[in-house]
């Protein structure tokens, strides 16, 4: 932590404090930890919600995982197995099968964006891409809404592990994802300067910052100051301990899988424990235009099975699952038809997502697709609907409205409707 406060020689304490209060960067941590807040901290900790998104970059073939069509020409070679929930899933996810009482499958996802970039944007925000506006992503929205539950949080409220996630849009740079690798190591964290001097430098920096922001009157100039404050907080915070995934014992690491995604999920659990409201963990490589089933059986599904099951199990054991939403999804599913390269191509019309935890009912399979998987045969659900459901599960009010930069009101989750089977 920082060395104790001392007044620099030749300067009145009050004067220097003023600079720092202006910058807010240095003073905030000390000033906000007042008595009233500390007294409520325990109460808040008990009720605070979090969310972990498992992002399957490239578009996972959900027809081979969560909504199998054995025997159909589109079905592929995998067999379904029973689970602890009221559904069957793929035989290559045996450990996840034991956790399905905690998770539900939405089998009637039906979206329109089958391009990677557009699909990634749409599934992350609930809005289709629009060149004139940048919408905030899941992480930014959830972090923004849940921050009031953790005034003591000094580390970034939106962390993405092993990927880039999606940006904060009009909520501003202060809500952008903090990207780390699954090792949890953060570059350039080392402060090679004593805390006193750093604070004084921050004061000088703040003077330039605010001057420039006032002169240009342009948003990016002011946003930068908020990021500086968060950076300063993080550098000087003992809460950074949460990132030290290497402190977990070997057995635990092994249980999650000693690969990027496994360790990423373990890190996500530590961050939830450390109070971070939103974490995304990325597992890429699902863009399986070729040789889909062998790749799934050999690498992708065993990896996912280990990490996802360990994560859900750990959260439940620690009593965290009831307050932590899990969202498993990619940008779209893959074609029921198997192509000439034994692969599956992009497909958004009928596919599955998996959710659970927090206030979301587990053990269910919601919705149905046709016998060959090419069409949804029940009420279709969209990215907005899923997002609304997750928000409700996190006790975030769906009446929440954001004001975009051009003063257009934007409803949270783009006004999606809650999937009623999943949240009360």
């Amino acid at each position, binding site marked *: 932590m920082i060395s104790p406060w001392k007044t620099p020689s030749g300067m009145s304490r009050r004067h220097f404090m003023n600079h720092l209060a202006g910058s807010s960067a240095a003073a905030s941590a000390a000033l906000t930890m007042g008595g009233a807040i500390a007294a409520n901290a325990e109460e808040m900790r008990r009720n605070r919600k979090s969310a972990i998104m498992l992002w399957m*970059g*490239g578009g996972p073939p959900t027809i081979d995982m969560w909504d199998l069509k054995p025997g159909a020409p589109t079905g592929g070679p995998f067999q379904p197995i029973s689970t602890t929930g009221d559904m069957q899933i793929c035989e290559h996810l045996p450990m996840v099968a034991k956790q399905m009482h905690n998770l539900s499958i939405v089998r009637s996802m039906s979206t329109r964006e089958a391009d990677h970039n557009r699909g990634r944007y749409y599934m992350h925000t609930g809005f289709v891409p629009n060149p004139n506006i940048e919408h905030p992503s899941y992480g930014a929205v959830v972090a923004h809404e849940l921050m009031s539950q953790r005034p003591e949080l000094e580390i970034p409220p939106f962390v993405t592990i092993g*990927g880039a996630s999606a940006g904060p849009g009009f909520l501003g*740079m202060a809500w952008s994802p*903090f990207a780390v690798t699954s090792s949890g190591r953060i*570059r350039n*964290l080392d402060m090679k300067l004593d805390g006193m001097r750093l604070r004084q430098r921050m004061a000088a920096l703040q003077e330039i910052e605010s001057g*420039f922001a006032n002169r240009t009157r342009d948003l990016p100039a002011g946003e*930068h100051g908020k990021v500086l404050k968060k950076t300063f907080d993080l550098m000087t915070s003992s809460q950074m301990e949460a990132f030290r995934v290497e402190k977990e014992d070997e057995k635990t690491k092994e249980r999650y899988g000693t690969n990027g995604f496994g360790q990423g999920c373990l890190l996500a659990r530590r961050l939830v424990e450390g109070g971070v409201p939103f974490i995304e963990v990325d597992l890429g490589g699902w*863009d399986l235009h070729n040789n889909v089933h062998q790749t799934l059986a050999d690498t992708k599904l065993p990896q996912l099975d280990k990490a996802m099951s360990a994560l859900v199990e750990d959260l439940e054991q620690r009593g965290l699952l009831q307050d932590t939403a899990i969202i498993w999804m990619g940008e779209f599913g893959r074609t029921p038809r198997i192509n000439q390269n034994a692969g599956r191509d992009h497909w958004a019309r009928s596919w599955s997502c998996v959710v659970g935890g927090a206030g979301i009912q587990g053990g269910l399979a919601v919705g149905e697709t046709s016998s060959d998987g090419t069409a949804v045969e029940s009420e279709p659900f969209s990215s907005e609907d899923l997002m609304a459901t997750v928000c409700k599960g996190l006790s975030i009010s769906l009446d929440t409205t954001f004001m975009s930069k051009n003063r257009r009101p934007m409803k949270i989750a783009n006004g999606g409707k809650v999937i009623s089977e999943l949240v009360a």
Partner: protein
Amino acid sequence: MDRANRTHRIDPLPGHPIRLLEQFRFQYMAPKSIFLSRLTRSLGGLMILMIAFASLARAQSVVPPQIAMINDAIEQGWADYEITPAKEADDAVWCRRVFLDIIGRIPSLEEQQEFAADRGGNRRAKLVDRLLHDDRYTEEYANHWATVWSNLLIGRGGGMDRRDLTNRDGMMKYLRDSFAENKSYDRMVYELVTAEGATKPGAPGFNGAVNFLVGKVNEEKAVLAASSVSRIFLGQQVQCTQCHNHPFNDWKQQKFWEFNSFFRQTRALRRFVDGTRDVDYAELVSEDYAGEAGDPNDALVFYEMRNGLTRVAYPVFTDGTEISKSGYVDDVNRRHELGRLMMDSQSLDRMAINRYWSMFLGYGFTKPIDDMGPHNNPTHPQLLDDLANAFRGSSYNVKDLITWLTLSRPYSLAAVLGSNNQIDDPSIGETPKFSRFYLRQMSAEQLYQSLVSASGGNATGTYEQQEKKRREWLRQFVVTFGTDEGDEATTFDGSIPQALMLFNGELTQNATSTKPGSFLDRLSQSGKSTRDRLNLLYKAGLSRQPTKREVALAGELYRARGGKEIEMLQDVWWAILNSNEFIMQH
């Protein structure tokens, strides 16, 4: 706080301001040039005159009519929207801006002084001319633009992975050579699209241009080659149409596979280190193509529609021009034909203009810039077309284009959002009206070069060593999305990792070093007084003098450091390098 500040005075300050780099009034343009532009337009012989004037321009300091054309069109937009533009940026800020945009780094103190000392007319034009044509900047110019184009052509991650066939050094070498000799834009595009040869410098048959396509042809039927060429050079986004008709432009699935057919003779071959299975380099070749039905005289490709039906495609250019159906290279080299057809396409010119305009003015005429067509109306359609024609008329001279852009009125404006142009805020979704200079982050590459320059320039080591260091540094900001299309993002976006890097990273450590011979060490031995040196510091980093409050704060730091001036300078320099004002192009 104000009052407290005023009561402090830095002890060693002299009573008078130092006139190191004074501010000058900028005289923008003689009325004559406006007259000329109207004249040329009314005569209708626009193109011929423009070519004539372009060549005259440098010799006689006549403002090229292309600049007047930009100014007229943009000013008309202001009038239509009833907005008043920001005032002119002051000379020092403009100088910093143009250094960053043309050679990719901020100017040194000496370079700022050289600019300020030029008291003749046309100072700005002379600076642009120096940056573009003076030998001492050739290398930096070429390196900056090679970097920008490498990122466009092969992504920030291209050639970074050992398994990748792309050779980043080869790509950079080709582009550096091209920009150093000011190769015309059309020629560069033609070479990139048609190149054959080896990827690696020094390998037999080396041709660095092949690195653009070498990683895009072997997999997935060269889908990536087709979508990259059409997006980057023609401004046509076709990647969705490989699987279905485009929902909102006129590209159909058929068109995609016709365009894709141009790349089907192309293969990337691995060449191994003798006696091993280690890939040494790759070679891009054109081979006879039998087509998917096995008949080289009728080399067709199949594609499947969403309804499961199979269709056939042959090479057909976007405008409907067909070429021979033969797959024999001796009959027809499909990429040569494609290159030729692209050279005749207006889309080539318009995309180039849109790209360069957005690089210098902050936003393009369309958003996104590389998705052009009837479905996406440009903000200034006439200007886009006129500039496209002018660019073609200048034989695609990139340096001429840069001259027009940097000496235009919209480029000269201050980066201030005022009450009279409040609506001109593209960051909130308004269409850009270019009534101010749009504030933007430096690119990672610009920041790197600026920090190296700020540490006193004189980077050590060979080009290769410097480039290796730079690449390692840049790599930390690249994130890939794990898709076949190699999509990637940068975390160099003004968020925390970037702030941490600037707070504590090695580059900042070096830039703020006080070791003998360092920038701060040399600075502390120059100038007449502490105030003088403080001014130099602000000038070096921010191209301006410190404000009163900043001087007062420096005084406080001076005392906090126990009167050790170099430590105060170090603190201030650290603050400058970390500030929004430093890391933004403004």
